[in-house]
């Protein structure tokens, strides 16, 4: 199980980097002649020049990987485990992400958060029994904050770039965040495929199954409630990442897009670019 996944992961890693390299210049160049995929109406898919590839991969992840492998296994796991067990399993893995949660805030100029991450790691690894419990948040009010290289790039002002879907390993990402992937593979130990080279058992697979189980309800509801599952997932990805980069600081900073969103019906003549 691990071997093919790992090999696939690496192959895709290389492939993804090639994709980054070949696509990143195109948005800048698209000012002149419109790209081949451009329709009469440009906006919605502006961040998605790779839509053909992405939709195919999204379909593959959803209708093949999830439907026949990951989903059924996750449902099996859900049948024999209590929800709290799944939460604690996730907390164990997330605790291992400490190096990333410590280094990234420092790179973002937020050493205070690095200190919080350090304190959380010490407390949860000891009192929290190797991270299974989270006394740091429960008793010390040290809140968890997930950090990765992509967020740091975002803080530095690097735009997200094109949306990107990769089979199995990245159901939703973007060029910027995927560029941070190699760093995350080293630092965010609980999230990586890299360290599983050195781990003898199927921890990585177990972690992914557990995560899929935790996301089950959400996944089902998005599937059912969306008209275009792919477009819904893409929109949610970009929104969530923007919030993560602002560290959840409230939407008060997002005034321009959200205002436009709520205003447009009052303007009977929408401003066309």
């Amino acid at each position, binding site marked *: 199980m691990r071997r093919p996944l790992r090999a696939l992961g690496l192959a895709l890693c290389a492939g993804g980097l090639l994709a980054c390299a070949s696509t990143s210049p195109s948005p800048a160049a698209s000012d002149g002649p419109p790209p081949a995929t451009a*329709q009469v109406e440009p906006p*919605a898919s502006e961040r998605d020049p790779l839509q053909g590839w992405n939709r195919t991969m999204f379909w593959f992840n959803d209708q093949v990987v999830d439907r026949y492998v990951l989903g059924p296994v996750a449902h099996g796991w859900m049948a024999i485990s209590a929800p709290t067990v799944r939460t604690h399993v996730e907390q164990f893995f997330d605790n291992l992400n400490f190096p990333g949660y410590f280094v990234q805030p420092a790179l973002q100029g937020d050493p205070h958060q690095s200190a919080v991450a350090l304190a959380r790691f010490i407390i949860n690894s000891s009192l929290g029994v190797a991270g299974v419990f989270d006394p740091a948040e429960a008793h010390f009010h040290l809140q968890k904050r997930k950090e990765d290289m992509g967020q740091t790039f975002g803080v530095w002002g690097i735009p997200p770039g094109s949306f990107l879907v990769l089979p199995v390993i990245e159901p939703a990402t973007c060029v910027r965040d995927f560029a941070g992937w190699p760093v995350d593979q080293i630092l965010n130990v609980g999230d990586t495929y890299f360290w599983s080279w050195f781990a003898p058992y199927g921890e990585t697979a177990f972690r992914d199954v557990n995560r899929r189980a935790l996301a089950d309800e959400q996944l089902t509801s998005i599937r059912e409630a969306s008209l*275009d599952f*792919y477009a*819904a997932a893409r929109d949610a990805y970009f*929104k969530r990442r923007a919030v993560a980069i602002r560290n959840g600081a*409230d939407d008060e900073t997002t005034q321009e897009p959200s205002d436009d*969103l709520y*205003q447009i*019906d009052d303007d009977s003549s929408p401003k066309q670019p």
Partner: protein
Amino acid sequence: MTSIRSMTTRVRSSRSAALAALAAMLLAAPLAWADAAVDGAKASLQVTTDQVLAVLNDKSLDKPGRLKKLENIALDRFDFPRMTLLVLGKNKSQLSPEQLSEFQEEFKRHLSLTYGKQIEKYTSDEKIQTGDARVEPNKDVTVKTRIVGGAAGEGLRIDYRLRADGDDWKIIDVIPENVSLIGNFRSQVQEIVTQKGVGQLIQTLRDKNAQAQQQQGTGGGAK
């Protein structure tokens, strides 16, 4: 000499007091409005959540009955026509009046079906905490809530955006974990309209609703 000085200071202080009072009044007027808006929106949302909780805790209802009641609450508390327009955005101009009214009907059904189904998962184990609210630049009010306990696990943040409707407030957007429902639907609508056209948009919505309705029916029948 001393008396004159004390008099001038008194005059000056009373003048500055008047100025301060004036400034306070000027500032307070919009602040008072904002407070009233926040209170109104919060109260309105509270009524809604109380209604929902009452339905969820009503053990005498069977599943279809409960869903029906939740849908009715949604129909009453959400401003569906406005939500439809927000979701369509500038694509609205591409719909004929008949298509617009059909879309509006189907979208309303879609939202009330999915909303009912989402909410229906929750039981009395979960608690809804109403948090801060803020006034948006366009005078909408966003109220933060958090669902904790039970199936919500670590806690689920849901913000509601409300717009004044006469004396009342109606929900115009639901924002779970920072992802606006309206924004999310708008990008889907944009995608479908660009790639497949308006006809396909309405057809997709119709299919989705038929599917949801059917599921709801079988779900109820199994009970």
